[in-house]
């Protein structure tokens, strides 16, 4: 299944969506290039789903412009945007067979029976659903339903795929497998993907670009590496990465006019530095994570190789941040300085 070359860049210009007094999306501008795998990442309620739905046409923006390719689509019906959507709940039609579900978008568009059966078969093949075409969604597992939803999305060959947390109902193992399948699908289809998730592992492993959102605004847009290596704010620094970046109190590591952050792998237990108390030692098998309390508001996690001797709970330790890997943020705004 191969697409003709489509130009499906997406441009959001000053898009806002307000529900009463709540600003779900607030003056967001974002460029998504043709064939990007763009991840909208953020905690619950940050406006990422609303932004996706605005692109799909399920929400009308309160202000701003949504462009797909060369067309401003603010007033274009969802069905005419050349966008398909995969929902978190899969939203399959429970009374239709898998085949009927997959064909449905084509049926609505008046494609004749033979053609749409052929297209459905192809899409089913791409997603390994051929043995299940006659079944109803109720008789499928979560992962299979998920793939039916994907097949329904790809069957009409849209220029843009919108996906709203499509993996969140799957168990951990299946999620990891499907993640890889989605990446392969993106490579294969060569279409533009816009993918919403709150899971930073999904974001880091799947997307070629990530937009990190908080409270309706975009905090940072960049490649996974950029976002990880050079987080634009304390929020991004702590949202990306497991465990999150350690933020030291202002003045404890460097001058008091900024705060210093360091990833757990760049934070070390030493004999001098920032005083802390060990709160918890977690043995993860391949490594040990030592959770330390610096003061009431600051905690830091140190990753050390398995087999190393570690201080016990409650012992006093000193922490240092590797000088080559320090991140500096403004005390007031939380924005990156260097």
């Amino acid at each position, binding site marked *: 299944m191969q697409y003709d070359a489509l130009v499906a860049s997406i441009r959001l210009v000053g898009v806002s969506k307000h529900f009463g007094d709540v600003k779900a999306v607030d003056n967001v501008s974002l460029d998504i290039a043709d064939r990007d795998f763009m991840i909208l990442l953020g905690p619950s309620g940050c406006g990422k789903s609303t932004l996706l739905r605005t692109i*799909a046409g*399920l929400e009308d923006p309160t202000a701003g412009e949504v462009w797909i390719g060369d067309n401003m689509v603010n007033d274009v019906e*969802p*069905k005419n945007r050349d*966008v*398909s*959507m995969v*929902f*978190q*709940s899969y*939203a*399959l*039609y*429970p*009374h239709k067979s898998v085949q009927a579900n997959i064909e*449905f*978008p084509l049926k*609505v*568009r008046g494609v004749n029976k033979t053609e749409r059966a052929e297209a459905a078969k192809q899409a089913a093949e791409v997603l390994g659903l051929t043995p299940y075409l006659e079944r109803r969604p*109720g008789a499928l597992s979560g992962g299979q339903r998920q793939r039916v939803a994907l097949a*329904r999305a790809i069957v009409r060959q849209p220029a843009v795929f919108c996906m709203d947390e499509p993996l969140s109902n799957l168990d951990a193992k299946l999620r990891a497998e499907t993640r890889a399948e989605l990446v392969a699908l993106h490579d294969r289809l060569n279409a533009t993907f816009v993918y919403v998730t709150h899971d930073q592992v999904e974001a880091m492993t799947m997307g070629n670009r990530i937009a990190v959102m908080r409270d309706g605004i975009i905090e940072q847009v960049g490649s996974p590496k950029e976002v990880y290596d050079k987080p634009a704010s304390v929020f991004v620094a702590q949202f990306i990465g497991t465990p999150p970046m350690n933020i030291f109190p202002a003045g404890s590591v460097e001058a008091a006019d900024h705060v210093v952050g360091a990833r757990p792998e760049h934070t070390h237990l030493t004999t001098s530095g920032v005083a802390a108390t060990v709160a918890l030692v977690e043995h993860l098998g391949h490594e040990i994570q030592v959770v330390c309390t610096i003061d009431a508001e600051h905690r830091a996690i140190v990753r050390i190789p398995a087999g190393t001797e570690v201080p016990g709970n409650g012992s006093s330790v000193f922490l240092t941040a590797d000088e080559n890997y320090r991140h500096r943020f403004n005390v007031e705004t939380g924005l990156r300085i260097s």
Partner: protein
Amino acid sequence: MALDTAPKGWRSFARYSMLTIVALFILFPVYTTVIAALKPGNKVLENPLVPDAFTLDVLKDAWSQGRLGRYLMNTTIVAFIVTSVQLVTSIASAYAFSFLKFPMKRLVFGIFLSTLLVPLEVTLVVNRRTIDSLGWLNSFQGLTIPFVATAFGTFLLRQVFMQIPPDLREAAQMDGLGHWGFMREVAIPLVRPTLGALGLFSFLASWNQYLWPSLITTEDDMNTLQTGLRLLASSDLDKPNLIMAGTIIAAVPILIVLVVFQKQLVRGLTAGAVKG
């Protein structure tokens, strides 16, 4: 809760005895009706509970003398019209209350529901007058139009429509379906059991209507089964069991409908009660 230590056999014995008693209460009138209808008229009053004589004459008499064929046809026409139009209006209004956005939706729905509190008897006189002024006495319009829309149907279907996940509506929207398409392709197929139950309810209710038809029919040709039975009862005093035979004839079609659609009825009543 105290632990139930009674042996299993005793418990089911008690349960079945209870059910049997209740069943006897319900079936007794049916039994006497059948017995009376199948006995010659002169034997009905001696040993009314014992089937000691048998004849089909009474049933035949009731059919011919009472013009039950004509009444049966009238009732069937009325019940079909009322049921089918009621389904259409209930689907349309319930869909609007579930999936469309319009100002004062809750208020309008509240007003709709409040009509459930008004008993038929209250509106009887006004409706009779309206039908009269429209010149619809002794007509199928008169028999059916006051019943073609019900708040009950709207309410029942709205409840099941509301259980359809919003994602499904949005998925359909992305697939290119408008409201009509979504109603036809998704919403209606998904609530089919409830539609079946609602259809059956309105069919039964319409079939058993007595008060309204008796108010607006004055010509014998327009009598329905129920009003026709009334005539039958007063037509031949020599045959007190004629009315019993008529009742049985009137009940047979509805029994058939019930037996055929029993599954639908139960499914509709329990729809949404258990997570599917």
